[in-house]
Structure formats: structure tokens, C-alpha cells
């Protein structure tokens, strides 16, 4: 973390990134497999409307829908919005129009992008056609975008029934998601982290119940009031409880087994977490007296080691378990 220029609060980049894996029902599977094969399917409701994109249950009647039909790759824009600055993940990297398009044969509209030279080239009611992606996997992005198609008259007549059967149907999608944040821990945790970088552990005392919170989060969860008075605790503390970890964590360079413990620093009103080292894992015990160990450039303790003091009496830490 780095101090912000405008204030003392810490900030750090935080990236949340995950491949969202989702399974498909029979209708969504047929629709997305169809896109892979350049075929657009809709679903007919019990009262005769054709929904594109199709859903498995009627949004009006809640009827189960399975009656697939094939609609045209051409359609009419029902509304639009000109997007002058596309962002990451959107269908086109150059300025484009978001459009809702009612494909010929459909009774509802599909959201996608329209590749057009500028907003003057776009209007509600304009005729458009699908531009297929060159590599298609069975996803809504198999439609690369729409493109203007002014000469194509709207197809008439009822859309033809479709079995929805394809070889090698798509059963699921993986939707990658990435969001970028700037994490700011706030006043209390900033003060705590700043003190740790100076090899001091600082808690905050509740003005009401007098308990000292380490690490502090700015509020006493018992009293629901702000904590403000800073209190230096430790450096020595007592192991109140612990566990032996036998699973090697990804990207963590610590040999297993190792001990993870709750440590009540002297003067603290509750225990914090830390790794215990400098003692065989099977000799760690409740009441063991420990002290933090910083690595050379560490901004926080790397682990806690035994101090060699006699074990703490149970009565001195039983309230902190």
C-alpha cells in the first residue's frame, strides 16, 4: 500500500477476477449452440409471441417454454444509444451504437452493438443484420455486432419450427469477469498499518467498554461507537488457541505443517491471527508466550516466535479465547 497524495489514508489496487462458469437449460443451450452454427432461435409462448433471446419460462405467465422456432438474422432497431467511448469487454473497440433489435419473426428485442460510422447513421426503425464472429464458441458474443442493412426488407411470415438439436451442443458458458478497484482501509486500519510498518502494534480503545481492539476497525462491535484512543500493545503476547495447517496454500512459500494461532498481545482486548515459527509445530501450546518477528523490509510481522518466558496462566487469557 502507498499513502495517497491528498490524505494520509492508505490505498492499494485490488483486482477481482474470476471465470464465472454457468450451466445452461435446454432453451438457452439450443440458442447459444445455434449462434455457434449461425442460426438464431427463439421460443414461442403459449399465447403465440416469439421471444428472442429465448427464455425457459414465460416472463408474463410463468409457463414452461420449449417450443423453439428459427428467426431471421435481419431485424429492426427498436431503440439505440450512441456510445462514443467503448470500455473493456464491450463488443466493439471503436465508437458504436448500443441497439435493441427485433429480429424478423421475433416479438421481442435483443441487446447488442451496431457498427455504424456515427450517430447520424443510426435511427430507430433502421434495418440491420447480424455480423457473425469469425470464431464462435456458443455465446452471445458469437454475434460480433449488427451492421446496417438498409435494402433488406423485413421478412414476413411465421418463423419455422426448429428441433433445437445440434451435434455437440453447448451445455455451459464461462463468462470471465474482471473488476478493478482501489482499496482504501479507512482511518483506523491506516493508523494500525502505519504503526506496524514502524514495528509497533497499536490498538484502539472503546470509550464505552474500555476494550482495546487489535487490529482496530474504527468501531466497537459491542457498543456500536467509534474507537479513537490509540493504545500500544505487545510486543509480547500469549497463544490462546491454534491449529496445525497441513494444506499447502497456493503462492505461499511456507512449508507444511505449520501452526496458525490466535495471539493475545499484552494489553489487547482480543486476539489477532498469526503464524508461529521457531518451535516444532507439535510443541506449540495454549499459553505459550510469543513475540513478533519482522523480516528485514517487512511492513508487518512475518511470524511470531517463542520468547522463552514461562507459559501464561490460563486465568490470564481465558476471557480472550
Amino acid at each position, binding site marked *: 500500500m502507498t499513502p*495517497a497524495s491528498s*490524505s494520509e*489514508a492508505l*490505498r492499494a489496487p*485490488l483486482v477481482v477476477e474470476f471465470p*464465472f462458469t*454457468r450451466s*445452461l437449460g435446454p432453451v438457452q443451450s439450443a440458442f447459444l449452440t445455434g449462434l455457434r452454427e449461425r442460426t438464431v432461435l427463439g421460443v414461442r409462448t403459449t399465447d403465440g409471441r416469439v*421471444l*428472442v*433471446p429465448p*427464455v425457459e419460462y414465460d*416472463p408474463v405467465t410463468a409457463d414452461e417454454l420449449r417450443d423453439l422456432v428459427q428467426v431471421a438474422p435481419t431485424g429492426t432497431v*427498436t*431503440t*439505440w*444509444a*450512441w*456510445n*462514443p467511448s467503448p*470500455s*473493456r*469487454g*464491450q*463488443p466493439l473497440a471503436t465508437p458504436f451504437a*448500443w441497439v*435493441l433489435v*427485433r429480429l424478423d419473426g421475433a416479438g*421481442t*428485442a*435483443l*441487446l*447488442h452493438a451496431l457498427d455504424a460510422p456515427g450517430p447520424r447513421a443510426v435511427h*430507430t426503425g433502421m434495418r440491420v443484420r447480424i455480423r457473425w464472429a469469425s470464431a464462435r464458441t456458443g*455465446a*452471445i*458474443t458469437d454475434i460480433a455486432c449488427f451492421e446496417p442493412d438498409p435494402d433488406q426488407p423485413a421478412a414476413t411470415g411465421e418463423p419455422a419450427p426448429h428441433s433445437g438439436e445440434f451435434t455437440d451442443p453447448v451445455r455451459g*458458458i464461462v*463468462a470471465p*469477469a474482471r*473488476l*478493478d*478497484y*482501489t*482499496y*482504501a*482501509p*479507512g*482511518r*483506523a486500519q491506516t493508523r494500525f498499518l502505519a504503526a506496524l510498518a514502524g514495528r509497533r502494534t497499536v490498538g484502539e480503545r472503546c470509550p464505552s467498554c474500555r476494550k482495546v481492539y487489535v487490529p482496530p*476497525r*474504527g*468501531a*466497537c*462491535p*459491542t*457498543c*456500536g*461507537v*467509534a474507537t479513537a484512543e490509540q493504545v500500544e500493545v505487545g510486543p509480547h503476547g500469549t497463544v490462546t488457541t491454534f491449529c496445525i495447517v497441513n494444506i499447502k496454500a497456493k503462492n505461499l512459500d511456507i512449508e507444511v505443517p505449520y501452526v496458525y494461532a490466535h495471539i493475545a498481545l499484552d494489553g489487547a482486548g482480543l486476539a489477532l491471527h498469526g503464524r508461529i515459527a521457531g518451535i516444532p509445530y507439535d510443541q506449540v501450546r495454549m499459553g505459550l508466550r510469543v513475540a513478533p518477528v519482522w523480516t528485514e523490509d517487512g511492513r508487518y510481522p512475518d511470524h511470531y516466535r517463542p520468547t522463552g518466558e514461562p507459559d501464561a496462566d490460563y486465568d490470564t487469557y481465558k476471557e480472550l479465547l
Partner: protein
Amino acid sequence: MREVAIVAFAQSDHRPDTADVSEVELLLPVLRRVLDDVGLTTGGIGFTCSGSSDYLAGRAFSFTMALDGVGAWPPISESHVEMDGAWALYEAWTKLLTEEADTALVYSCGKSSPGNLREVLTRQLDPYYLAPLWPDSVSLAALQAQALIDAGETDEHALAGVAARARTAAEDNPHAQLAGSAEPARLLDAPYLVRPLRRHDCPPIGDGAAAVVLAAGDTARRLCRRPAWIRGLDHRVEPHALGVRDLTRSPSTRLAAERAGAFDSPVDTAELHAPFTSQEVILRRALRLGEDVRVSPSGGAQAANPMMAAGLIRLGEAAAAIHRGGSDRALAHATSGPCLQQNLVAVLEGDPQ
């Protein structure tokens, strides 16, 4: 049925960036004010319910941190909605109606500043057909605005008028993030953000917190000189596929209003959660608001739109108008999701003055 009222309301000053404080640090002064207002401590509250979203914070179970602010130890009766706090208020209201509690604290907190809000909100869309295209919240609102313009129900000049009115009204709201506006004609000189929306058609992006206290029957009368009685409260949702809906209408708002009793007799004030100017046009029509109704005298969501709190603030502002004696029968509306996806309507009344 048991009478339930909003007896206190507090909100933070809404700001574009609050990196200097954590969520609970942002929330604590608001909780303090709302509880002091009725002379209660967190321990004296029967039920607590909050609204927030992990996607704003970028952290799982982020609401548990904010729980420190309400004294969650020893254990309290508590719940959370991953939505605007207006829906947390709905849950608390039912808790009081069923006599499981006599008082409730409802709060919500939203910090948009840690992430890119327009991108973050794409994650609440249908994951199969919409989210993979990353259509941002302003673009979706722009589709709705264009549909409204095509239908001949508004134009860009009229929308600028909506923005100017809201932000001029916000000059009297010390908590607002934006206040004051140029003349509507001048606003049209600005470039489009996503055509047909310009910056003034869109809500400010910011951080904020809000809290209200609910109480039932005689408890409400004891805690508040003029309680804002909740006469009706209902929420409804549209089909989630945008292309299924007529984007120029809000049938869910109309239905929620009917079920809440909004049309039984006229209201004098309406706090609308209309983040985009075009949405105010749609909501006024859905709620059949006449020219004589004071609409969002606080400036509404166009002046401050802290995500997950802006809807609760509409209920709080409407209640506060009744507490002050400035309104006798007020309507409050909250929305969530793209293009007025979900809508909640409450009808509040004060005792005769």
C-alpha cells in the same frame, strides 16, 4: 393491522470519494445521529436490517464489517439485503407488522469510489445474454431515454429542464453532492456522455450512508412528535430481459403504487428515485403525479445517488418532510437495477396537524 412509522432519519454528506474512511467509519456518525434523535441505543433496537452490495466494495461479505457499527455483540436480531436499503426497510416493516419487534434500525452504505461504477453494475445483469457484452449503466439508461424520445414523450430540452429543477432544488439540501444548475438551454451545449444522455442527465457517482428508525404504535408516538406512518408499502419487478419490456413505461411502479394505496387519495410530496432525468418522466406518469405535487424537493437521486442508500434516502426524506410538518401525505419511491428494473413505493402520512 399494526401501525408502523418512520420516526427518525439521518444521512451522510454525499461525496465523490471517501477513501479517508472505511464503510463503518462512514456509517457510524449517521447511526449515532439517528439513534440519538430517538434516544435509543443499538442495544435497545428490536431488529436491525441493512442494504449494501459486495460488488461495490469488491469484497465478499463486506456488510459484516459495517455490522461493527451497530453493536452486533452480544448477538442481535439482524438481517441484510444485497440491495438498496429501501428493501431492507421493507423487511424491517414486515418484522414490525408481525409483532416480532417494536423498533427497527435500517441502514445502508454504499461506496462507489473504490471501483468503476458503470462497469461494476454490469455484473447485476443477466449473465447469459447481457453481462458478457458489458453494457454499462449509462448506456442502458440511454436506450431507455431514446425510446422515450422516439415515443414523443420528452425531448432533450425537457430532460435538461428536469436536471436543472432537481439540482436547483438541491441548493437547500446540505447533504447533496451536486447543487445548482445552469439554464436548461445552456446545459444542451455539453457533449453527449452516451447519446441522448449528457452529464446533467446522469446522477453523480458518489459515496454515502443513510439510516432510519422504524417503530410501531405507541412506541412510535413516544419516540417522535409526528411519526411518518407507513400506510402502504409494496415492491414489484419487471421481466429481466430488457427487450421484453416497453422501456417507456414502468408497470411495476404503477402496480406497486396501487398496492401501496398511493392512488386512494392525493399526495402532496413525492420523493422519486430517478437517477436519470428520463426516468423521472416515466415515474411521474406511472405514479400519476400532477403539477401540484412537490417532486423530490431534496434534489433526489440527480443530486446525490449513493448506490444502495439513495432509495432508502427517498423514504427518509419523505418521512422527514412529515416529521417537520411540511407534508401530510407523501409518496416515496426506490428503484434498483437497470432501466427501473425493480420498484418500491411507500405511502407515508402524518397525523392531522
